[in-house]
């Protein structure tokens, strides 16, 4: 009986990871016509706080694979896939370690804002060392896009985190009952 319960929980976990990864993928594709504006950082922050490090990391891995295989706009450069993966996984890593106690909406909004810049910087090593793009030119040109991402993260978390956290935690409670 106990074993059945654990198996059922695992099946439910897998289904949940697939559904939440699909949500992450769909919103990113839907918003990809606006450069660097999406709810991806907001959703990963929300998932981390509700599901924890392990499940969120699995969602991120599925999301990165799906984005690169199924995006109608084509994959990113294969060399950039590790940067993308590390960039998104950084959210559950940081929120489970250094910012473990960061739970206020204002704090998470500021985290999202600065993460916009950090995510952009993840692509610098490959661009500079492997693609030979000059560091300063790349850094300066990317700043405006990082700022856009930071502000969109900030506003999305500021307005949506509390209601979505409340809604999703309620749904998760019913789902695992």
């Amino acid at each position, binding site marked *: 009986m106990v074993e059945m319960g654990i198996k059922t929980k695992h099946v439910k976990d897998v289904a949940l990871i697939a559904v939440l990864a699909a949500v992450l993928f769909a919103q990113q594709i839907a918003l990809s016509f606006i450069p660097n504006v999406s709810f991806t950082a907001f959703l990963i922050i929300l998932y981390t706080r509700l599901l924890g490090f392990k499940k969120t990391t699995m969602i991120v891995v599925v999301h990165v694979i799906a984005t690169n295989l199924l995006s109608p706009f084509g994959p990113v450069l294969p060399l950039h896939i590790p940067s993308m993966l590390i960039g998104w996984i950084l959210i559950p890593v940081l929120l489970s370690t250094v910012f473990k106690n960061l739970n206020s909406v204002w704090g998470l909004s500021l985290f999202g804002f600065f993460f916009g810049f950090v995510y952009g910087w993840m692509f610098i090593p490959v661009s500079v060392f492997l693609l030979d793009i000059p560091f*300063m*030119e790349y850094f300066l040109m990317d700043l405006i896009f990082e700022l*856009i991402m930071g502000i969109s993260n900030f506003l999305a978390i500021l*307005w949506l985190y509390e209601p979505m956290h409340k809604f999703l935690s309620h749904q998760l409670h019913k789902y695992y009952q």
Partner: protein
Amino acid sequence: MRSNNTLKLIVTLSVIILLFAGIYFYEQSQSLSGPGEFELVIANENEEILHQETLAFDEGMSLYDVLRTHFALTCASNTYDPDPTCSASFRFFVNGSTIDGKIILGIEGETFEVMTDWDRTYLAIEVYQNGSYRLTTKGVNGYTLKDGERIRIIVTKVSGW
């Protein structure tokens, strides 16, 4: 709760206003200047100067417009094949808006010719600053010409070739 929402609203509006103000002033600083003159240097991949000339530009002219006026250009087609008609355009994101830009593969003057294939070589646009050439962050349509500066267009090998 209400005061918290009011604070959120104030912060949101402030951030949006600051963002648009920033983009507006950035665009203003990047808007085409002119009329003026700039020195154009065209070099091969060994950095040997093939052509050097001072060219004038009018207000609103892009680097592409100036090059088109003085030289025979070969642009990239939509499949990146050579296209002397330069009819194909590529959509680039410049200064917060999209522009229909060109990709130049080759330039031919009366005494010189440079040609690249995009796969192994390309034409890099550099500007002379503080004693050395620095790669511009924009292409021939997006780059803002400034009076008195020196621009070098140089054949450059793609990394790995």
